[in-house]
């Protein structure tokens, strides 16, 4: 039967339902960012950004470490890679479907190929 649901994955991707949180992840993918520098990017309070980071951390999407007075945030590349791999497979699923659609549409004109090869 089909694969069951995975609570960790659900939490992980549910955390990404918010546009600001998605943006935080994108920024934290390349390099470490402090919570205060992230806070300057968005028109929301430092506390709000801190809360977003906590949700992302709870979902396992980012990790946080202390560096002096700063809290540095990095995105979990592994989780993103898993999603990217799944999207690649879903792309293939749709490519296959579109291939079958093409064949179905081509079958609307079954005589065309014969006509092309007909010397008359």
């Amino acid at each position: 039967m089909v694969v069951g649901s995975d609570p960790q994955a659900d939490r992980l991707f549910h955390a990404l339902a918010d546009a600001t949180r998605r943006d935080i992840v994108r920024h934290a993918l390349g390099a470490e960012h402090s919570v205060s520098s992230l806070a300057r990017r968005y028109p929301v309070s430092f506390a709000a950004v801190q809360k977003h980071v906590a949700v992302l951390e709870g979902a396992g999407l980012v990790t946080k470490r202390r560096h002096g007075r700063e809290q540095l945030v990095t995105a979990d590349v592994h989780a993103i890679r898993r999603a990217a791999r799944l999207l690649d497979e879903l792309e293939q699923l749709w490519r296959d479907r579109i291939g079958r659609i093409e064949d179905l549409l081509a079958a609307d004109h079954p005589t065309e190929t014969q006509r092309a090869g007909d010397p008359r």
Partner: protein
Amino acid sequence: MTVTSVEKDPVALTLTITSELAAPVDRAWQLWTDPRQLERWWGPPTYPATFVDHDLSPGARVSYFMTGPSGDKAYGYWDVVAVDPPHRLEVRDGFADDSGEPTDTPGPGVMIVTLTETADGAGTVMVIESQFPSAAEMEQLLAMGQEEGMVAALSQIEAILADTA
């Protein structure tokens, strides 16, 4: 190859795939509105789909199941959100149990189909936008068609050609 572009966002969990079909928009729309045509392309030959209820009115539920090589069945549904024939269909799609009750956690995904005329008017640009609620959901979707192979796809093509000849 008729697929003209693919956009994937692994953070937002979205997939947008654009293709050009060699048929007018009205014909392409039938691929979605006629359940017997849907059944010929939705599932791979080894995991064919059977549409049980198929009513594309807003608020209606389309239900289907896919039958695997060992006779196992996977159930799915679409809740129709909006329809604008023959150009646009928006559904929430998810999985169900064998009585048709949704089993999704945290919830269904979104699929939006858009059909527009190509510049020369002869063909159709079909855009499928999918938004997946979780990685688990994506895995489940993939499990519904896993057995697919080139050989099986070819045999289905031959079968379609044979019965239209």
